[in-house]
């Protein structure tokens, strides 16, 4: 069955018809062409599909698009304003926390959600917040450094 949903994605309001069976991830990628959000495992284990929904990091592969009716969604595309990338994205580049890049959009969205609720995270806080984001390239240390770097730039204490 199909139904009409309204939601905000990266501050832009949308209203459209979706199939009850489609996931939020499928709608973001195929309907809205926001292909920065990746599909890895498709079962909530890898975090590549992480987006921020009403302020909380969630795995968009496990959310039906109809469940997102009335919500506010932020994806990796919303991190950039015009040509400028966000401080978190810059921190990932500066710390060499990006290799193949497939996990990076999810990592950045988890980091963004973490820093909003905890501007000064400890190493343990970072590990807990990113435990649901898998990376097969970097070995994680540079990613943790990137989160700390971003936190410092936002004014959190070292």
């Amino acid at each position: 069955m199909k139904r009409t949903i309204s939601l905000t994605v990266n501050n832009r309001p949308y209203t459209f018809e979706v199939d009850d069976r489609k996931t939020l991830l499928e709608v973001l990628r195929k309907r809205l062409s926001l292909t920065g959000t990746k599909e890895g495992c498709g079962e909530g284990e890898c975090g590549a599909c992480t987006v921020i929904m009403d302020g909380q990091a969630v795995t968009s592969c496990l959310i039906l698009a109809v469940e997102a009716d009335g919500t506010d969604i932020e994806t990796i595309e919303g991190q950039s304003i015009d040509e400028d990338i966000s401080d978190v994205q810059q921190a990932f580049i500066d710390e060499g926390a990006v290799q193949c890049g497939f996990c990076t959009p999810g990592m950045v969205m988890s980091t963004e959600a973490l820093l909003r609720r905890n501007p000064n995270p400890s190493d343990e806080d970072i590990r807990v917040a990113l435990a649901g984001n898998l990376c097969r390239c970097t070995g994680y240390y540079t990613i943790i450094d990137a989160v700390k770097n971003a936190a410092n730039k936002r004014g959190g204490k070292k």
Partner: protein
Amino acid sequence: MIRDLAYHKPDTIKETIELLGSCEGKTSLLAGGTDLVVNMRKDAYHPDNVIDVKGIEELKRLEYSEDEGLYLGGLVTCNQLIFSEMINEKYPVLVEACKKHSSHQIRNRATVVGNICGASPGADLAPALLVLGTEVDVVGPNGERLIPLVDFFTGVKRNALEEGEIVRGLKVASPIKGYKANYSKKARIKGPDLSAVGVAGLASREEGVVRFAFGAVAPTPVYLDVSDLFAEKDYKAAKEELMEKVDASISPITDVRSTEKYRRRIAGVYTRRLLEELWGEGDK
């Protein structure tokens, strides 16, 4: 690809019960969806109807009172408990269990009641809720009833709900005077993983209470109240009998997460450690 389904989003429990009665074919309730949607995507389960309960305000209750204890509505998520000051103060063992349940993103969606209703033998929240003393608040076409949590689990992924019933929430008993409780979990990795063994313990010297509960070592979570043992016997004898009782009460299997032998061993080790941590050495 998820198979065709009809999605419903009622505003009230009454409407939900009516839908459960009128929908044809297989019907599933959807809260966090962290189990259901995985199974639907894998084509392991394909409901004809999905009833999304996230529009029901009544299920969002998270309240505590000295007399009544904790009421934990059907939509309360694991992260809500982790970030609740009240839960951290009154029921820190629930925070421990939630932290050991999945990843941050999943905990933002996964509900405590969903973890219980799924009735997985390894459900992380079950042992902690069992030792605290929990009743399941059920509503159905024939009215309301409270089911002790220990009786709620009837088999692997089976619960005591009858047709048309839903869980409105959980009633957790008021904290026992001077109690300490904790949850230990063994998994294959330090990060998010299903448990190979989960043990919750609760003890209060003031009230003479000692309870343990175990996950992933039997078809359903196992609950042991061994307060009498510690009241009647000296510490060493009570501890010895407790260890024997644990071994006799569990019936672990060998699977991808662990062997039967290792599960048995770890259940014992965690029980002993928790006893020492929560009750301490020596007699009352």
